[in-house]
């Protein structure tokens, strides 16, 4: 435990840990000191000079990102001299900045714009020509680089040097000719490349898949959890519903990591970040009976029919770690006595590393485990199907063709007398069931995932469901009522 000391911040007496950076201690106390280069996870090179403050007794202004709190320190963050120094640091950042805000994706969330409104608001006195640099560099599969907009804060280079240790970016040349460039022979293609876009305080590094899609001020933000793997990175879902004709009609415009010291720090991986494209592809929105012929039915009708079929034995329940804790609890109740199959198969297994990525590419196997559920193997399921031991097969959000191959899956499916598919999106063979029920995607519901370390995390509803879709747990409840109702009827 660090020692607590008292220091003065704009005349206020503040208590803070000795040695804490003034910029952080001020933030804790509600005072946001302008800054570009400092990032709590990437260090304090002190190169932007934006965070300048006055320290009593110091011969010249100090940068608060490199000044530590000590007993009796007296800091001024808003004196006229400080305001002038900060405005001038901003002015100097803009001497060679192209000011192409109207065509810049960062516009609306740009450190230059924001500080201009907060601490700038001066009349420009730059009469000289600006320097020109390269404005369109495809830095990697996900990231575009505009060198003219870069303020050379080195956040991104510190990220690739210290976090991913892949060194794809560097500051080359010297003085005013300096520019951010790809390291010769490399491209920015690592598993976490998208994070440089988040940490870039300006529009120098932008997402290729977000480029020119939608202005950021039309986006809504919702706290969520990335479902991409069992790490459960905290994210913010940025949705575009105010201008549905933007972003090629896609409702989720982008995902951004949300800071959580315990789970993901400031980062998320590219796999998680860029897998939003398929979210609205082949969405299921109608409650359908598929046999003997395709027919819209009401939730109630479907529920009473399916509920009745689930009363007897021979039920197999296939799901995945995509289910929330609430879904698992409802499934446990509804499918009591049934065999469960939800383990991650090769289609849900991928690369892992020491930073964030986990091998199993679903968020919530741990939630099932916590409820005492365990998964049978898919070989057993196949055997039981072959042997005619499975009367009713209930599949949630799982593509059997990816597990068994199309032909085998088709033949195995045909062995069950009654089959239900439930999920947000179409999958291969989702026509080969007796019922198809539309479920919400994780962005359309709220719930909890339990990550691989057992941390339970909430995600919130960012969008309205498509069509008649309901959360999985809600469907299970509906069926449970129908099932017991049906049972009661029979008993009567």
């Amino acid at each position, binding site marked *: 435990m660090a020692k607590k000391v008292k220091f003065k911040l704009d005349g206020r007496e503040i208590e803070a840990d000795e040695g804490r950076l003034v910029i952080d201690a001020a933030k804790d106390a509600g005072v946001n000191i302008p800054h570009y280069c400092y990032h709590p996870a990437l260090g304090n*090179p*002190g*190169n*932007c*000079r934006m965070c*300048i403050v006055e320290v009593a007794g110091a011969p*010249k*202004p100090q940068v608060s990102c*490199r000044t530590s709190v000590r007993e009796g320190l007296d800091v001024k963050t808003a004196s006229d001299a400080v305001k*002038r*120094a900060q405005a*001038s*640091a901003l*002015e*100097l*950042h803009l*001497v*060679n900045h192209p000011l192409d805000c109207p065509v810049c994706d960062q516009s609306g969330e740009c450190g230059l714009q924001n500080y201009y409104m907060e601490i700038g608001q001066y009349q420009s*006195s*730059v*009469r*000289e*020509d600006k*320097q020109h640099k390269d404005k369109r560099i495809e830095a990697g599969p996900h990231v575009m680089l505009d060198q003219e907009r870069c*303020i*050379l804060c080195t956040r991104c280079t510190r990220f690739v040097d210290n976090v991913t240790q892949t060194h794809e970016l560097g*500051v080359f*040349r*010297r*003085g*005013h*000719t*300096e520019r951010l460039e790809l390291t010769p022979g490399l491209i920015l293609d690592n598993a976490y490349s998208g994070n440089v876009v988040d940490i870039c305080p300006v529009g120098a590094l932008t997402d290729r898949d977000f480029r020119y899609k939608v202005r950021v001020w039309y986006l809504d933000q919702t706290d969520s959890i990335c479902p991409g793997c069992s790490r459960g990175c905290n994210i913010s879902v940025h949705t575009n519903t105010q201008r549905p004709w933007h972003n090629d009609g896609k409702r989720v415009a982008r995902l951004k990591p949300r800071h959580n010291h315990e789970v993901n720090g400031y980062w998320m991986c590219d796999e998680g970040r860029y897998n939003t494209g398929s979210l609205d592809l082949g969405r299921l929105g109608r409650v359908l009976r598929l046999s003997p012929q395709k027919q819209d039915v009401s939730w109630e009708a479907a529920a009473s029919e399916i509920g009745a079929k689930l009363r007897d034995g021979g039920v197999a329940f296939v799901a995945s770690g995509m289910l929330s804790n609430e879904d698992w609890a409802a499934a446990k109740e509804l499918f009591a006595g049934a065999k469960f199959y939800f383990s991650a198969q090769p289609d849900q297994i991928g690369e892992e590393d020491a930073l964030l990525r986990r091998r199993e590419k679903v968020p919530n196997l741990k939630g099932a485990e916590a409820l005492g559920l365990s998964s049978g193997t898919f070989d057993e399921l196949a055997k039981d199907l072959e042997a005619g031991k499975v009367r009713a097969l209930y599949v949630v959000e799982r593509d059997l063709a990816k597990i068994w191959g199309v032909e085998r899956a088709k033949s195995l499916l045909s062995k069950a007398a009654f089959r239900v598919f439930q999920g947000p999106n179409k999958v291969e063979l989702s026509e080969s069931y007796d019922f198809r029920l539309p479920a919400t995607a994780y962005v359309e519901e709220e719930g909890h995932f339990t990550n691989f370390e057992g941390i339970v995390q909430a995600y919130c509803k960012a969008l309205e469901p498509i069509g008649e879709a309901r959360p999985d747990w809600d469907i299970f409840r509906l069926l449970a009522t129908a099932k017991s109702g049906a049972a009661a009827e029979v008993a009567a």
Partner: protein
Amino acid sequence: MTKILTKHFDEPKLHELETYKRLDGYKGLEKALTLAPAEVTAEVLKSNLRGLGGAGFPTGAKWGTVPPVDKVPGPRYVVVNADESEPGCFKDRVLLTRAPHQLIEGLLIAAHAIGAKEAFIFVRGEYQNQYDIIEKAVKEAEAAGYTKHAKLMLMRGAGAYISGLDTALLETMEGKKAWPRQPPPFPTVAGLMAKPTVVNNVETLSMLPFILREGGEAFAKIGSAKNGGTVVFSVSGHVEKPGIYEVPMGSKLRDVLTLAGGVRKGHTLKCVIPGGTSMPPLMEKDLDLALDFDQIRAAGTFLGAGGMIVLDETADAVAVAHNIERFLTHESCGQCTPCREGSYWNEEILERMLHGKGTPEDVPNMTRIGENITGKVICALGDTVGMVTRAYIQRFPEDFKKRISDGQKS
């Protein structure tokens, strides 16, 4: 006048060990090796030797901040800063060429004083000739058995002024871009490879043989208060006899000019840049100023590294300021924004003025820009960027006015 470093410069073969030894060479080192390291440092403290690389930091005090080996075990290093790149400075070049053993002896004394088993000589990339000379001298010193307590190693710069700044130099030596570090920690605590490191200038270290041989007090007596010994000025510009001149610390500006033959015939003095182009100029009224690190401050400038540039009335302050700012813009390392962008901006304005396109707003604007740079950047190069134009505006406002009005007429 008393000379220490250049005393034997009449000897044509001073750069060879045999000649150097004949002239009391390596006696200082021999003496030092009979003393405990702390005693050597004490002697240097007594001498009032100041760092001659530009900052004038007391050398003995600097060494004193190196943590002792029993407190912080592990390697420690001495580095000779032979990156001399300040426009107007060429004294290290001459010292390297003519008296390499004097430097090597000083370096070996310093290594003993701080307990360094390895010592580096970092030579400016363009000083190929000097590198060859020093390399040869190092071999001679090794063969003669002087390097038993410390191994000498040579390194070359790649041609950046900023590499002369001690912390940037250490980055360069580590194979990185020459971006200055921001102390603390200071190099004496965490320098090369984060080990305690003393960086000293060629001239500073070259003083040590004398100090050890003759004693710190004898050295202190030669100079002025708190400024021991001599200083070597590189005098250039509008003088009759440009060259290097060694004078006791505290000598008058007038006397140095006289040594250099005075302002060229038929011309009058405009100003004197005392320590290299980064330093604001001295004026005619300052001719009787005593030149040492402390007294020169009264005239609002610095002794720097003794690169004295004399300018006569033909020099135009706008052109001079532009020339210096252009250099600084070219040499700014680019790490911090005010220096990187401000140097460029300032230079562009001056350039526009030179082309007759100046406006009356430019002068207050450059003053404002300068104020916003100096004291708000990472290193002293940036401080200079913000200082130079302001210094010339302040001393020669007429030159700026004339440029602007001449431009408006045409």
